[in-house]
């Protein structure tokens, strides 16, 4: 069963500059040259993606590649110059102002790179804010807010002000606030980029833990490929406003669409991307505790190498579907980097 598509965009353009609208209607699919000749900035060019329900979809790219712009087109914080954005099959760009407010109040949540907390409100008030402006009864709003505050592990800090918290804690507030309305669709724009590496790692674990419970449809932006690989179900790579490849982390490593993508993926250790499923040999002859197929090589390497023989590999349902041995692992860890 393929999961249903939650959010998709078709040929979305965002051009900045004088008379960008007129330009796009005259030249419906301009090339990069056309655009720069017209003195226009192509922040997003002809982007089409489909995001499945419950998926963690990551948008990756260098600074200025148009990630934020694309995500803001998806949430219609920015009006795209052209194209359509389908949310549950409905074109968001046709929604009225009022409908858009309703959709954002109930179905979308967003986390920001620099947290975007309101400085004059306490943690609890910040988290309650989205409910407050919907005129949710105070007791109900407060109860919900306390729940999510607890969910992100900030209990006890409800009455602190943002500036009294560390960066990691502030982002937890941002996360709690974006979840308080129980949205279906969760946007995160470089949520951990402003944090120290250690905290970042901790927050990534936290994020995975949350998602395991909540099963949101997630659009997550990062410029850190390692982060993308850790978290993503699928990754879209952007360059100069264009989406150049959409694939799972493994596919990106194995079959990069262009030299640019290959360059991107080169510096990350294979073992952190490749999963056991891609390396196993079919059969069920091995002994021992089975390893799930989607386990990353780096997480299991030690066990496989120190084992006496091949180990069994199980699928999502716990059925043993194959075996993996020392040689395959060693090849990933010490080989040329080319997958076998």
């Amino acid at each position, binding site marked *: 069963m393929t999961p249903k598509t939650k959010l998709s965009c078709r040929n979305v353009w965002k051009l900045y500059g004088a008379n960008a609208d007129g330009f796009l209607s005259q030249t419906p699919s301009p090339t990069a040259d056309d655009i720069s000749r017209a003195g226009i900035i192509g922040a997003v060019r002809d982007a089409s993606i489909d995001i499945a329900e419950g998926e963690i979809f990551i948008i990756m790219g260098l600074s200025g590649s148009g990630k934020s712009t694309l995500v803001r087109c998806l949430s219609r914080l920015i009006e795209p110059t052209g194209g359509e954005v389908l949310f549950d099959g409905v074109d968001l760009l046709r929604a009225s102002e009022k409908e858009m407010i309703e959709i*954002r109040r109930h179905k979308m949540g967003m986390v920001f790179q620099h947290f975007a907390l309101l400085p004059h409100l306490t943690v609890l008030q910040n988290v309650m804010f989205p409910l407050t402006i919907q005129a949710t009864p105070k007791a109900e709003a407060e109860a919900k807010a306390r729940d999510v505050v607890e969910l992100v592990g900030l209990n006890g800090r409800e009455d602190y002000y943002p500036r009294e918290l560390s960066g990691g804690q502030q982002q937890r507030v941002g996360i709690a606030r974006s979840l308080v309305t129980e949205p279906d669709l969760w946007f995160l724009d470089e949520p951990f980029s402003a944090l120290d590496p250690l905290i970042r790692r901790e927050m990534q674990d936290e994020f995975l833990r949350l998602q395991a419970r909540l099963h949101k449809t997630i659009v997550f932006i990062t410029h850190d490929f390692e982060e993308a690989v850790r978290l993503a179900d699928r990754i879209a790579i952007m360059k100069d406003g264009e989406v150049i490849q959409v694939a799972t982390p493994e596919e990106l490593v194995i079959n990069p669409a262009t030299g640019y993508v290959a360059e991107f993926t080169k510096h990350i250790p294979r073992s952190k991307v490749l999963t056991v499923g891609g390396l196993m040999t079919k059969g069920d002859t091995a002994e021992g505790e089975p390893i799930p197929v989607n386990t990353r090589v780096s997480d299991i390497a030690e066990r496989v190498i120190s084992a006496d023989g091949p180990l069994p590999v199980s699928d999502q349902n716990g059925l043993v579907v194959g075996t993996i041995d020392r040689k395959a692992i060693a090849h990933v860890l010490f080989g040329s980097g080319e997958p076998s």
Partner: protein
Amino acid sequence: MKTMPRTGMLIAIGLILATILLGYFGRDLSKALDARWLVKFPSAWVIPFKTHISAAMSWLVEEAAIGPLAFTDITRAIAWLIEQPYQLVLSLLATGFITGQGPEAQVVLPAISWIVVTTAVVALGQYCRDWALAALVGGCFLYLAIFGQWDSAMVTLASVLIAVPIGAGGGLLVGIWAYRHPLGEKILSPILDLMQTIPIFAYLVPILFMFGFGPISALVATIIYATPPMIRITTMALKAVDPEILDFGRMAGTTDRQLMWRVLVPSASHSLMVGVNQVIMLTLNMVIIASMIGAGGLGFDVLAALRRLDIGAGFEAGIAIVVLAIAVDRLSQAFAERMGQVHHVNPGSWITRHKRSAMVLVLLVLTWVLGQFSPLLLAYPESQTITTGAFWDNAVKYLNVNYFDTFEAIKVFFLHWFLLPIKKTLLGIPWPWAIAMLTLLGWRAGGWRLALMCGVMSGLIVVTGLWSKAMVTVYLCGASVILATIIGVPLGVLAALNRRAGVAINLFIDTLQTLPSFVYLIPVVMLFRVGDFTAMIAIVLYALAPAVRYAAHGVRSVSHELIEAGQVSGCTRWQLLRHVRLPMALPEILLGINQTIMLALSMLVITALVGTRDLGQEVYIALTKADTGRGLVAGLAIAFIAIIADRLVNAGAKGARIRFGLES
């Protein structure tokens, strides 16, 4: 702009020399040629704008109407709106609530006792910051009581308490409107520019005419004067809100109104409070000027004392203004800081949470009840006030007796070698030549548009018959600006280069800027008596600040790479200053001088009080006679001078920036 070729330079120097010579000998020359009209515009040629404007204004006030709604109805409505809260606050602070009139007047409720007001400001000081601030503001208010300035100070405070909320609130709303509508900002921006260049003097007379002599006129003028910076700061502060916060607000599903009032305005509150503080300072700055059109209080006391040349009384009231200004300024700054800070709400009942307010309220009721039996609780006893008037009088007498010759020598020196030659030259320049030169200058600096503007505006000044008064104005402001530049720019450079000097100079400048403009006049009049020299010193003191500030900022912001490049090529400190820092800071210095010119022009009213014969005096006379046409024409002439100076200097600064590659 291209660098001036050599011949161009020579021509420019030649023209300047010619102008100076022409000016210096203009009078004799015109006599010799029997063409006195060249320096003195003949009164027969004057176009009587004054009368036309007076007639138009009378029509406006007496007859103008849109349907049944007469113009006067509108002004009356505005006046009524302002008057209600003003009367309330005035009654509370100063006059008490009275029924009946004349001899039957009965006090229903006396004004709030000095004890309560002082306690309230102490409590507020402690709430906003700490006991040190509480002691400072408490001391300020006690001073007002003990030195017998209480009643006047409360009248002034009442107008501040009305003008500030209206100015700040109105500025906020207009600023928000401009932020929301880009077109609105486009319309507003030049108007604000203009309002900042036009000295307050220009609109005193029309306001007087529309609202009549009295506190309401004064409040209207004050509000008009104090609001523009708030509008600017609001728009800027809203624009400076982190775009992520804006995005968050919209993602949370806010309506436009929620986005503004629950997200943007609170997020910008820190900068907005800076604007409020500006409004407060400008309001206090207007205290004396406003008393010319009917504000009572301390401003009126100063003005009256100056008119009587009663140095002691003027000084006392002047110090009281400073004391009040310091108290209000410090309190509002601390309040702003406190608003921006984290503070946790204590649990408990209203009384435990609002101990201070409760205490003040209890005290208020107590003094009102017990005040029936002991008037001391309501008003500070007059017999216990200390007057320092005699002391100041004696001090001045002492200084004048013992150092008269020194002061006189300084004054005569400046008059003889500095002021009079400038005056003679400026007054001697034939007006056709002056118009031609200004037009030429405008053309060189900013193309034909600026040329046209300079030509038309200076021409208008001539045909209104105000040319020589305008020249006296230019002379007085010009001399003051030259002096302020000579003193201010080096101070600014020093402040930028030497940290310790910088701290001291900053403190000095900050203090100068907290003082309301008129206060400078009093000690100077004491020592030098009335006249041009006195006016000049007062203007220099008032207008010095921007010259210092901008110079310091300009020198500080010269790029490090340039400095290092200079050092690497072996410049000495002096060469570095001379060849790198100063030239690169020139545009900024020019902008500072521009601000200095604007401030100098806004001090013109002072020159009227000390008896110079310039445009300030013209407006002043018009004020006393309520002669709208005369006042408006003179006010416009001042505005024209300000605009010409502003545009020329700005164009010059822009040219300099382009030459140095700081702007394209």
